[in-house]
């Protein structure tokens, strides 16, 4: 319980840090942010938008501390400001549409990749020196060396563009409207397949190697030798004695790499024009939609923090030692 409280405390600090960072981002720009944005947009802004934006940023002649408090107050009410490119829809509305797709793509790809990678690493360590064990590590290192976006681009080019096996863009067929029908769900799965596959292919190696190395270390423990000496079935030694303990460090790494995977998913979303948070972020950057950009950054950060909290809670379930201390 104590452990959980400490973790929650840490996530609150991290959330506060990202909020504060977010507050200072527009103020990093040389000169008055309002003017700077105005200049960059080259007169494409109406006076109303500039006013709305200044208001959203809490930009005024007040001292910074007052602006900061007002900004926090706005956030507490769930106000992230108004989008410039889709004026006047609130940023929160736009973000919510993207969040669904990112969570879908991110969760599917990460869970599958983690599961397959861990199982392969586990069996590799168990059957050391076998064909699979000597071929897999170099192979996954090689595939994992390719940048996400590059692999995604090549996959899109061959599988979708040249051979037409998969759709070129978007999360579901344009002719359908979101509904809980079989047709719609199939379309979503069909559009999800290739983006998820590219993320899995690139990220699987990390899990495989991590699992293989901790498993080899765990197999050197005396209790494994003891279990073998007792004549326990091999399967039982492998899963109940070795793999259960070897999985724990991998779980910690899982939590920490979530942000990285989300970053990778961002590139994948851009290449496949998959309408998640990452795709929206790049669209916002290209349209110089600063309020939307910042709202998205906050949202992605919070998503990562919450996902980490969930991993921590799972960890407590899995490791009795954490519960005891």
């Amino acid at each position: 319980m104590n452990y959980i409280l400490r973790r929650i405390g840490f996530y609150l600090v991290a959330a506060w840090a990202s909020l504060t960072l977010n507050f200072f981002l527009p103020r990093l720009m040389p000169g008055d942010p309002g003017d700077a944005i105005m200049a960059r947009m080259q007169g494409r802004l109406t006076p109303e938008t500039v006013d709305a934006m200044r208001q959203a940023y809490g930009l005024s002649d007040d001292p910074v501390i007052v602006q900061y408090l007002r900004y926090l107050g706005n956030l507490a009410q769930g106000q992230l400001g108004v989008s410039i490119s889709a004026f006047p829809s609130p940023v929160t509305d736009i973000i919510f549409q993207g969040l669904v797709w990112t969570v879908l793509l991110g969760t599917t790809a990460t869970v599958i990749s983690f599961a397959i990678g861990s199982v392969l690493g586990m069996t590799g360590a168990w059957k050391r020196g076998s064909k699979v064990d000597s071929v897999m590590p170099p192979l996954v290192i090689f595939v994992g060396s390719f940048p996400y976006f590059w692999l995604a681009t090549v996959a899109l080019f061959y599988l979708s563009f040249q051979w037409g096996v998969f759709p070129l863009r978007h999360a579901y067929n344009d002719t359908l409207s979101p509904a809980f029908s079989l047709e719609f769900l199939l379309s979503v799965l069909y559009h999800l397949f290739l983006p998820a596959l590219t993320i899995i292919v690139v990220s699987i190696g990390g899990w495989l190697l991590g699992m293989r190395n901790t498993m080899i270390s765990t197999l050197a423990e005396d209790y494994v030798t003891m279990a073998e000496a007792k004549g326990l079935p091999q399967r039982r030694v492998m899963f109940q004695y070795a793999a259960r303990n070897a999985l724990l460090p991998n779980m910690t790494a899982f939590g920490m790499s979530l942000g990285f995977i989300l970053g990778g998913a961002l590139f994948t979303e851009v290449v496949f024009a998959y309408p998640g948070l990452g795709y929206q972020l790049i669209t916002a950057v290209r349209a110089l939609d600063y309020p939307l950009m910042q709202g998205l950054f906050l949202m992605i950060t919070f998503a990562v923090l919450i996902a980490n909290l969930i991993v921590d809670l799972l960890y407590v379930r899995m490791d009795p030692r954490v519960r005891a201390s």
Partner: protein
Amino acid sequence: MSSNQTLVEADIPVAPVPEERVTSVGKPRRASNFVTLILQNRKAAVGAVILLLFAIMAIFAPVLAPYDPTDYVGRARQAPSSEFWFGTTGSGQDVLSQTIYGARISLGTGLLVGLLTTVLGALVGMSAGYFRGRVDDILSLITNVVLIIPSIPLLIVLAAFLPAGFWTIVAVLTLTGWSWGARVLRSQTLTLREKDFVASAVVSGERSMRIVFREILPNMTSIVVAGMFGAINYAIGAQAGLEFLGLGNPSNISWGTNLYWAQNNAGLLTGAWWTILPSGVCIALVAFSFALINYAIDEVTNPRLRSQRQTVEILKQYDRRMRSSRATPVIRGAVEA
């Protein structure tokens, strides 16, 4: 490691002068031992050769490249031919020359950022691990917060707000990339700090800075080096990613901008696969080499992985009849690097 340790201990009652000589004489020899040990590993040797080739390519780019990478030398989107080995881009530049020149900025930024992040990470991590207490609490908190904020979205937002340019990218990559190394080095420093040779250095009245850099740091060379290779890899990949998204300086020639132009001059959707292939494969080969070397470092410095490899080799000679046991063999006398 152990020889140095005993030497230092034996020197304590004497004046600090001979001890200094011992470290300065002992270190280079140990470092070269480490390098040969790593290079004997086949994976590491392959990685080192590939990296060397890329370094030569970057340094001698003006000699090796057949054309000026910015010149419009022929018709746009020509397939590879004897005249243009890798074809031409969407605006008629030579892809091969661009790929060769691209190594300069990509590798240069990678090296620079890799060094900077390693130094920053080592400073923060080792201070936290060495001073412990309040200092550690604060530094660890900062490290963990930086570690958990997703770096790529942060990179993108920072790059969008700051004025575009080479140094912006270097600064942004450094600020987001140091935390992993700091975390690893902190825990390693915490462990080493408990060792006797540090205690004896403290008792003999050495300054903290000297203990950290001359006593503790040399004992974790492999971790620092592996961390730096990881950081270089991260920097090359992240820079290419930012440039691919159009957040770099598009008039520079680098692997990332090559890919940006390949995508934005509709290279792909006209079927010009040769514009996207070379730069991506180069990034992958560099990353692969660093990963291979790191894998080898892990294998050489982790006694369990090493004994594991030795046993597999021994078992191969014996027709693998002994393979019924699954437990990792522990070679008690295995030499640590």
